[in-house]
């Protein structure tokens, strides 16, 4: 019984796209996707209810545990200071809900400035990293020059260097370059990401060279070939790498923490972590600050979930 249904589903899903002209292409692929998921669910959890109920319970418990800290932080950020630090614990605030903490934090603090700094730094890092890494990856993939193997070997070896061990010499170097406590000083040392060069080289390696040859026969320069032929074919990998680099830069703590001193140069992780509220630890404000600091990337994630997940799966191996 079970095997007949599954093969029927399989047959249907294979046949359907061509046979249902009335539906739009998107609706058809969606319907097919649904059937495939259902099929896989049966394969992994069995046809009965028991497996499904168990799986749903476990995933729901895990999700609840994972959502709890953020949920509690959100709730607390909408309480008054007295309610947020009420002992014994109260879930429902006596004084009612309020957005005072947000108002106070936004009015008093440097948080909007830190977010802006983070946007700038992450953008600079992403643009520079993707540009230089793509060019280098293309050179390693396609072009022949003296020292290519050696330089690529060096890039591979550099994967093993944890950026954290460089903070001491880099700190000194930034002073010499007059870049300490500047946004460029925060950004530039982050643009060397050998992993991204390798990820992109692997991608370029798989693009058939014929297309480039055709363009070259038409008289296109090397750079034009790269720009007009290779890059358009590489949009998916460029997106993936950009996302990975942007998020890594956004959440980087140690280096921005080392190189910045002035609060007005700090990025959001550093500012929230170092600059203290002179009026003492106020938990509702702390949680409000934390939520504001969390929001930009969470919004970006909700908008581009599929891209981000693929970006991480692609670039992430070795990048943490």
């Amino acid at each position, binding site marked *: 019984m079970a095997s007949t249904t599954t093969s029927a589903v399989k047959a249907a899903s294979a046949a359907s796209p061509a046979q249902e002209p009335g539906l739009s292409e998107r609706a058809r692929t969606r319907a097919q996707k649904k059937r495939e998921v259902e099929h896989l669910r049966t394969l992994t959890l069995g046809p009965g209810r028991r497996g499904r109920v168990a799986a749903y319970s476990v995933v729901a418990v895990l999700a609840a545990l994972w959502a709890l800290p953020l949920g509690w932080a959100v709730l607390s950020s909408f309480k008054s200071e007295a309610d947020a630090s009420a002992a014994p614990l109260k879930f429902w605030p006596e004084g009612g809900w309020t957005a005072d903490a947000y108002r106070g934090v936004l009015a008093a603090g440097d948080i909007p400035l830190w977010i802006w700094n983070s946007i700038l730094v992450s953008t600079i890092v992403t643009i520079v990293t993707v540009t230089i890494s793509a060019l280098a990856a293309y050179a390693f993939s396609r072009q022949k020059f003296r020292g290519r193997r050696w330089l690529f070997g060096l890039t591979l070896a550099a994967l093993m260097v944890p950026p954290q061990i460089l903070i001491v010499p880099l700190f000194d170097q930034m002073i010499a370059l007059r870049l300490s406590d500047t946004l460029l000083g925060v950004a530039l040392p982050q643009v060397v990401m050998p992993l991204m060069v390798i990820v992109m080289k692997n991608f370029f390696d798989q693009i058939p060279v014929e297309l480039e040859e055709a363009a070259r026969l038409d008289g296109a320069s090397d750079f034009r070939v790269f720009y007009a032929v290779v890059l358009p074919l590489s949009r998916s990998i460029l997106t993936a790498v950009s996302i990975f680099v942007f998020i890594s830069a956004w959440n980087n703590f*140690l280096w921005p923490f080392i190189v910045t001193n002035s609060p007005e140069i700090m990025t959001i992780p550093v500012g929230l972590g170092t600059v203290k509220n002179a009026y003492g630890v106020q938990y509702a404000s702390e949680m409000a600050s*934390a939520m504001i600091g969390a929001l930009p990337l969470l919004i970006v994630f909700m908008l581009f979930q599929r891209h981000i997940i*693929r970006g991480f799966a692609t670039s992430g191996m070795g990048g943490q």
Partner: protein
Amino acid sequence: MTTTTSPAQAPRPPASISSAAEPRKRALPRTGYWFLAPYLFFFALFLIWPIIYGLWMSLTNRSLVTEDSEFAGLSNYGEALTDPQMWSSLGNTLFFTVISSVPLVLVSFVMAYLVYTGLKGQWLWRLTFFAPFLLPVSVVTAIWAFLFTNDFGLVNGLLDKAGLSQVGWLSDERIAMWSIALVTLWWTVGFNFLLYLSALQNIPDHLYEAAQLDGAGTWRRLFSITLPMMKSTTGLIILLQALASLKVFDQIFLLTAGGPNGATRSILQYIYDSGFTGYRLGYASATSYIFFALIVLVSLVQMRLAKRKDS
């Protein structure tokens, strides 16, 4: 090198032409250096040079607060290798690596497998498990410091309500590191979850179908198909996780600053403490290289194992 085993979700060139990967040696333009120059410039300036400069610093008594420094030979290395505090921070780091990596691998697999089976609400599960990974570390530590507070912190508050005694999550020497590991699990499990999820989605359905025809139940299918198929991914995730855990600094620095009484001080914190708090940049450089050696060792051992598996 790890990326060569990249998962199925990796973007591929357009399918119509991806079969012809072979003949790429024909067109060989000579502008390679121009393409490479910008990368090499930054590579040399912010990676090669600091490595060399740091090595030189490690042989001097360079200080944060004075201009001049003297050559000190290998004395920094000698001092670091005989300093019990260096060893205890290294021990803390290894301990953290073990107690954080194990749950980070196990829990992420469970999450990924459940989502992979096609439960309804994919978007929600993925968001919930992955979202913490997108939070800046100071947001994570602010939330957890609040959760771990005495009296009105959520965790201790719930213990209170249950009639149990409160726990000094971050102030008790025996417990603090476990709390840090818990925070780290919550924060970073989403990353491993994604890697597992994309690897799982790579398993062809026909394997399950064949097993089903052979009469294997769902548990049997999990153990004889899914898990074996995840072997190389798991190896990779373990390595990445171990390397990430060895480099722990941010969340410890912000939650306990290495305390109480040094119980959570990681090796990177030791480097920070001796170099910046203790002004001894030369000594901190030497410790950095000892740590670097450890990282290289772990990477090489893993590469060795991976090669053996491949052949």
